[in-house]
């Protein structure tokens, strides 16, 4: 090996105060780099990423690394140029207008409005609003699920009150129509009672068959609706009873099951 050591090569490469070209031109440094695999590998690593440079060896390689180092130094030396820039005429005035020369807000409304805007703009505002809303909810309804309990115990009564009369009217109307459309009782021999001894004409028989089908159909629909409604009401009653604890009192207007 030559007179210069590996440590000196590395220190000289890294030292920003050294002019890299000065030492690299020294024959002992160039010879060292040419012969020292470790230094070449180190310089290779120093110039990481540059495949073209990696292919070079010896003094040429060192020169490339040095050029690169010098380039980096030159760029770094120029960077403070960017530290100060002219923001343009009137910028300071604009800043002062927005700060020390800004007129104070007049009156309590402006102050409250300003404070409110500042409050709302904070990221935490949503959480705080949710907290306040929860507190209000608890104060108003006694407990967090008070409104749900109230709904469960009252919705059956409300629904019966609102929907009960129309359903009753519908059933009454249908009973009336059922009575009107009902055919006369048929005797055991197949003849209708009363004066109708002869077989009815085709049109009359058709009409009777149609009305009979309609009657069965409407009756079934009304019965199904009424049954469903009574089940729903009973379910609500049962649910309300469970929510508000066991009660010995029967419901005031319990729905009767159809018998």
């Amino acid at each position, binding site marked *: 090996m030559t007179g210069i050591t590996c440590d000196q090569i590395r220190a000289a490469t890294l030292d920003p105060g050294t002019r890299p070209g000065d030492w690299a031109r020294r024959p002992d440094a160039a010879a060292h780099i040419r012969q020292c695999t470790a230094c070449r590998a180190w310089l290779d690593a120093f110039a990481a*990423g540059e495949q073209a440079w990696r292919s070079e060896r010896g003094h040429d390689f060192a020169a490339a690394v040095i050029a*690169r180092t010098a*380039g*980096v130094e*030159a*760029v*770094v030396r*120029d*960077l*403070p*140029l*960017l*530290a*100060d*820039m*002219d*923001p*343009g005429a009137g*910028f*300071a005035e*604009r*800043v*002062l207008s*927005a*700060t*020390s020369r800004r007129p104070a807000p007049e009156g309590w409304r402006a102050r409250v409005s300003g404070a409110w805007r500042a409050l709302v703009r904070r990221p935490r505002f949503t959480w705080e609003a949710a907290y306040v809303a929860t507190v209000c909810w608890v104060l108003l309804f006694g407990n967090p699920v008070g409104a749900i309990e109230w709904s469960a115990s009252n919705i059956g009564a409300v629904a019966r009150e609102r929907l009960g009369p129309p359903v009753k009217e519908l059933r009454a109307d249908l009973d009336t129509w059922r009575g009107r459309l009902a055919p006369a009782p048929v005797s055991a021999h197949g003849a209708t009672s009363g004066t109708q001894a002869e077989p009815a004409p085709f049109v009359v028989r058709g009409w009777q068959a149609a009305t009979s089908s309609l009657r069965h159909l409407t009756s079934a629909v009304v019965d199904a609706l009424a049954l469903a409604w009574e089940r729903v009401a009973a379910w609500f009653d049962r649910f309300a009873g469970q929510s508000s604890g066991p009660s010995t009192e029967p419901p005031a207007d319990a729905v009767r099951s159809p018998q």
Partner: protein
Amino acid sequence: MDSSELAPLVERCRAGDAAAWEAFVRQVQGRMFALAYSYAGDREDARDLAQEIFVRLYEARSQWPRGDEFLPWLFRVARNRSVDYLRRRSVRRPPSTVDETEIAELADPGPGAEAQAIESNRRSLLHAALRSLSAINREIVVLRDVHGLTIQQVASILGVPLGTVKSRASRARVELAERVLALSRGRGEA
């Protein structure tokens, strides 16, 4: 600009002296605008951002730290404001690319037109190269090499370990030099 230069102004600003605030604004506006520009990459946005930074500083003037702590604190406030600004802007519209003609207009008035043009060109190259770095590398270079903060201060401002800043600072410089070289070759100047 160092802490000792600013110390008397800082003290008077802390006491609520309006004249001192005005002097402070005029003294640091170039630095704050430059820092804002390195984040915003657009002259008009940088003005808005720099103004926001000053408004924040004004609001907190009674809490300004004294002595050597002031400058790192100033850059921390400016950096946090810039990051918030970029976050808001990214919601509004995509980040703009660097307008190199605009950068050329940023040059401070120099002694001669030719020197000014050369310096303007160098600034333009550096800005374009900086914009092409990753965000963390760009911040390290801007705070460390442009504004001259120490490695410890940069680590503290960015909230990353000291070792990370050290290793990234070297790599970022090399990366920046490569970008400058590539850009200058692209312009036919190499």
